């Protein structure tokens, strides 16, 4: 087996593998947030939704022996939290950012409370597609074990892009997000469209959680999300509210996660704090680079953050 090692070549391979393994949660949460923000509301609570989704998926998969039921249940748990956020954040004079922060605490509290019993049991993980069998390297074979959830996410991104640009419902969502008063004049129910967008977005975020607990790293632990839900919110800004860009951004963040460990694995341990913090540093840089008090970002939904 010693001859099979790839040496430093394993660093790019590990980053590619890390991209495939770890980007699904970023992708689902950012797509969900993209949909929500397109309708003019921010849902910071997706971090809590991610945790609740992860816990629900793990618990249901363990209890029913069916990981796919777990994925569905995670989505539905997301819908539940989404309904609360949609209702609260559309009360008069209520800030959606504040509600979002409360929802992070609520979602993680729910997940920790019900998740206590599921820390130890072993749930059935999701099946994987083994696309690497053509290679004789076990490392390559393992890197190309792709989660079906990632593939579903990759399909959703262009579909959502098309939905916004070419469908009537997509137009409604954009109208509500850009100019609620114009949308009202058109006879669109702003509250209805926003509720739908927030709930659907939370459904996606819940599924992102299922990817964490049922695929990678594949267990339920209270620290499982490590801030990925919040990072995904920054990622939407980076992606300029374009679902297809969310896909690229999510893959980038998934890969960034693997940089630190894979460099240390080949013996490069200098600056390990810097490399380990790569995803967080990227979030920070993106936030600083893209947020300016003086101008609105191109692509930003007009009503975002206006409480209109």
């Amino acid at each position, binding site marked *: *087996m*010693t001859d*099979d*090692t*790839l040496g430093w070549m*394993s660093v790019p*391979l*590990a980053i590619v*593998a*890390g991209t495939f*393994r*770890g980007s699904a949660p970023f992708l689902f949460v950012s797509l969900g947030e993209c949909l929500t923000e397109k309708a003019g509301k921010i849902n910071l609570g997706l971090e809590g939704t991610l945790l609740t989704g992860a816990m629900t998926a793990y618990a249901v998969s363990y209890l029913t022996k069916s990981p796919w039921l777990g994925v569905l249940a995670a989505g539905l748990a997301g819908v539940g939290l989404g309904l609360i956020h949609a209702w609260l954040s559309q009360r008069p004079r209520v800030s959606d950012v504040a509600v979002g922060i409360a929802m992070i605490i609520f979602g993680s509290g729910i997940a*920790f409370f019900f998740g*206590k019993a599921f*820390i*130890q049991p*072993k749930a059935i993980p999701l099946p994987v597609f083994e696309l690497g069998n053509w290679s004789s390297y076990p*490392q390559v074979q*393992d*890197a190309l074990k792709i989660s079906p959830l990632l593939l579903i996410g990759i399909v959703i991104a262009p579909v959502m892009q098309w939905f916004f640009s070419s469908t009537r419902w997509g137009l409604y969502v954009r109208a509500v997000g850009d100019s609620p008063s114009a949308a009202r004049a058109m006879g669109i129910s702003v509250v209805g469209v926003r509720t739908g967008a927030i709930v659907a977005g939370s459904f996606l975020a819940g599924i992102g959680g299922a990817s*964490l607990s049922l695929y*990678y*790293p*594949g*267990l339920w*632990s*209270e*620290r*499982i999300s*490590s801030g*990925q839900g919040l990072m995904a919110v920054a990622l939407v800004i980076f992606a300029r509210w374009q679902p297809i860009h969310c896909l690229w951004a999510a893959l980038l963040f998934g890969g960034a*996660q*693997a940089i*630190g*460990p*894979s460099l*240390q*694995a*080949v*013996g490069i*341990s*200098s*600056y*390990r*704090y810097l490399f*380990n*913090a790569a995803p967080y540093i990227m979030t920070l840089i993106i936030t600083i680079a893209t947020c300016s008090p003086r101008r609105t970002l191109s692509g930003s939904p007009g009503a975002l953050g206006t409480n209109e």
Partner: protein
Amino acid sequence: MSPIYIPRRKFIRGAIATAAFGATSQLWAGCTEQAPTNTANTGAPSTSGSPAAALLTIGFVYVGPKDDFGYSQAHYEGETAIAKLPNVKTVSEASVAETATVQETMLSMINQNNVSALFPTSFGYFDPHILKVAAANPKVQFFHCGGMYTEGKHPKNIGSYYGYIDEAEYVAGVVAGLTTKTGKLGFVAAKPIPQVVRNINSYTLGARSVNPKVTVQVIFTGDWSVPVKEAEAANSMVDQGVDVLTCHVDSPKVVMETAEKRKIFCTGYHANQSKLAPNGYLTGAEWDWTSVYTQYVEWFKAGKSVTDGGIPHLVRGGLKEKFCKVSPFGSAVSAATKKEAEKVLAKFMDGSMVIYAGEIKDNTGKVVIAKGKEYKQTDLDLEKMDWFVEGVIGNVKS
């Protein structure tokens, strides 16, 4: 905005409610003051009195969940064992952050549960949280795991206990060194602190004592519990040809499961993880807090306390003193390996084994422990370790 208008009746009602709340808090405060007298009863020699009065209440605080297959679970197993002893009651809280929250937890255990002794188990609880609460509650005894009690500097009612689990790591290293086919072992570590470094070094020395060609690759994840990074670290080491993985993080679950998934071997840490990797689990370094906590309860019952020096401020021990143990060998361990490991284990048990006996070089080639020099486990130099032995790939300082 119009000025706030409060109807008079509402105001009176509110005032009454506030007064009532204030009155009850006063009662509460009354309770608080009684607590230390109670604890004095249990802690002091009155144990010889009526058995009902001698009920010992002991508090435990954990940083993680009680069933994480890791650090907190190991302590919880100790708590469960002493809770079964006569006249002992335990109270505990899990998943308490290393922030001011832990002070609240400790205070409520002191004030509401009348605990006479507290075991806040996580490393980060010590400074400043335990120091602060201990100074304000001199009649309660505090025992901290892994901490560094300094005579004269810290409140007298603080004790520290820790085990030389690196002895069990040494044995695990022997098993790993004899089982590996690639000669590459992997170690997922949380932070470069002396306890972690010492485990890595002992593991490496154990492996190289039976197989001098072995190397140990270290990856620091940066924190005690970051599941995604731990999985990423484990996977990238397997990609590098590592075929035995071990770790020093709060919950070894991720590393063990990843090793099993990638069909390589693993050795555990903190608690027995053989269930997580039925094929690849070789052995592991486990804590044996049951025996440590039972010892403490015996001291308490004999009327001893750390405050007056009846219980030593520093309690330490290794395999021989039953502070730690080695997991039962897994199915992948060959008979010859088992024999070799048991030989080393026996040397630890009779006290003749010294891990840090010169000449030992660090991984830059510098001699750190000269020939003929021996560091016994109790040596304080070992508790300050900041170098890796030869054979470790990685460095302590980034």
